[in-house]
């Protein structure tokens, strides 16, 4: 097949055309150019356009060369490329090898020509949708070129009240319901619902002296911290930390029968009555 080998030049022209032609250094200009693309396919499409032929008749090999040269230039200028640009480069290198090597045994793998045709088809299809989008936007549009009745009268439809609930609202509502558990913050009122460690320590130290027998940790919680689950959780945690600190000082003994079993506290041997 007769392929053009001029990709190396056109890619750079393209980058120059896209970046502003200010006196920016090459690297920055290329980065600006790359920022303009929605991804590697978009970049490929722009390169294919520069061949100025029907997209289904482009030279895929020249396109591959152009893309790979572009990547090499980016590497030379130390521009970090998103992973999908590199994945595309790898795939195009594979495609190039398939185009240049003798075809595989029939029926084994798609031939280079088939892959190339697929690529050309996709580029043409995306290009078609871009043009269609532009054509759609250029239609005579309601509210811009064509106007509806400006003063509609009363109820025009059989519907009496129009509820402003669209499909997207309905779907969002369901999504909200179904994912609510996952996003409810654990302690919404973190500021008011926390029993400070100092307070727990003070309270436990004050009471433990009068407790010679094993008593469950929860028995030491202040009354107003024992009911509401959030406050209770916080009070248990603070009291436990306080108990550990007092145990270190020898003022408290702690016992637990097993993991997650209730914690029991009593006056420590070295604690005594007073400080």
């Amino acid at each position, binding site marked *: 097949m007769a392929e053009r080998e001029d990709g190396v030049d056109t890619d750079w022209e393209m980058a120059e055309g896209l970046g502003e032609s200010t006196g920016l250094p090459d690297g920055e200009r290329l980065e600006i150019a790359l920022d303009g693309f929605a991804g590697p396919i978009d970049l490929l499409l722009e390169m294919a356009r520069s061949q100025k032929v029907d997209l289904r008749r482009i030279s895929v090999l020249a396109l591959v060369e152009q893309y790979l040269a572009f990547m090499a230039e980016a590497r030379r200028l130390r521009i970090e490329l998103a992973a999908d640009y590199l994945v595309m480069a790898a795939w195009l290198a594979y495609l190039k090898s398939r185009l240049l090597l003798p075809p595989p045994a029939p029926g084994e793998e798609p031939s280079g020509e088939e892959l190339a045709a697929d690529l050309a088809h996709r580029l043409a299809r995306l290009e078609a949708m871009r043009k269609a989008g532009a054509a759609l936007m250029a239609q005579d549009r309601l509210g811009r070129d064509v106007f509806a009745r400006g003063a509609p009268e*009363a109820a025009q439809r059989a519907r009496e009240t129009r509820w402003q609930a669209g499909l*997207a609202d309905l779907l969002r509502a*369901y999504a909200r319901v179904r994912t*609510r*558990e996952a996003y409810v913050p654990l302690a919404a009122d973190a500021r008011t619902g926390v029993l400070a460690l100092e307070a727990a320590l003070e309270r436990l130290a004050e009471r433990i002296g009068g407790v010679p027998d094993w008593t469950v940790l929860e028995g030491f919680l202040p009354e107003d911290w024992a009911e509401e689950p959030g406050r209770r959780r916080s009070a248990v945690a603070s009291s436990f930390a306080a108990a550990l600190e007092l145990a270190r000082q020898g003022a408290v003994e702690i016992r637990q029968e097993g993991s997650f079993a209730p914690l029991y506290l009593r006056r420590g041997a070295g604690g005594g009555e007073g400080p």
Partner: protein
Amino acid sequence: MNSMPPDEPALFEVPPLPEQERMVEALLFASAEPMSEAEIARRLPKGCDIGTVLAMLERRYAGRGVRLLRRGPGWAFRTAPDLGFLMRREVLEERKLSRAAIETLSIVAYHQPVTRAEIEEIRGVSVSKGTLDALMDLGWVKLGRRRESPGRPVTFVTTPAFLDHFGLESTRDLPGVKELREAGLLEAAAPSDTAHALPRGAGEDETAPPSLLD
């Protein structure tokens, strides 16, 4: 019979009367308020004969289902008074569904037939009788069969009017939670999804989606 001048500098030429008539017809049709002759003149090319054109239009619409009427200082199209009975259903009123209502409705749509207890379990909040009543008044929800379980609770299902309003062929076409996420309809997607997808970090659903309109 389009009598628009081909491509002369229309800016300086007065359009022929029939063309002026088309212009005023379109202007008054699209206007939300009656327009005075001065307002109309400001919109038309210079030199138009507004008075004559209004008289032409008035004659054209005489006896039709729509009339051209003088309303104070302005002119407006109005439906003929003898046809008012066609329009006189209810005042068109646009209202937004409450969050509780739309959530309850979505649960009925996805889980029907569903009991009130089940709706509450899914929402994690109690559902007031008024919410379900309102959805039934709207004609979007109706009673289904009683559940054959202790207490034989009533169930709720959606109606054809529901499908009609939301443009659905059937409730089987509603997307699943995974598809909702993929379509970007989860307002607070899992953190792993959003870390880079929401550069502005404004994940509230009340704000208009920023990426579509700029």
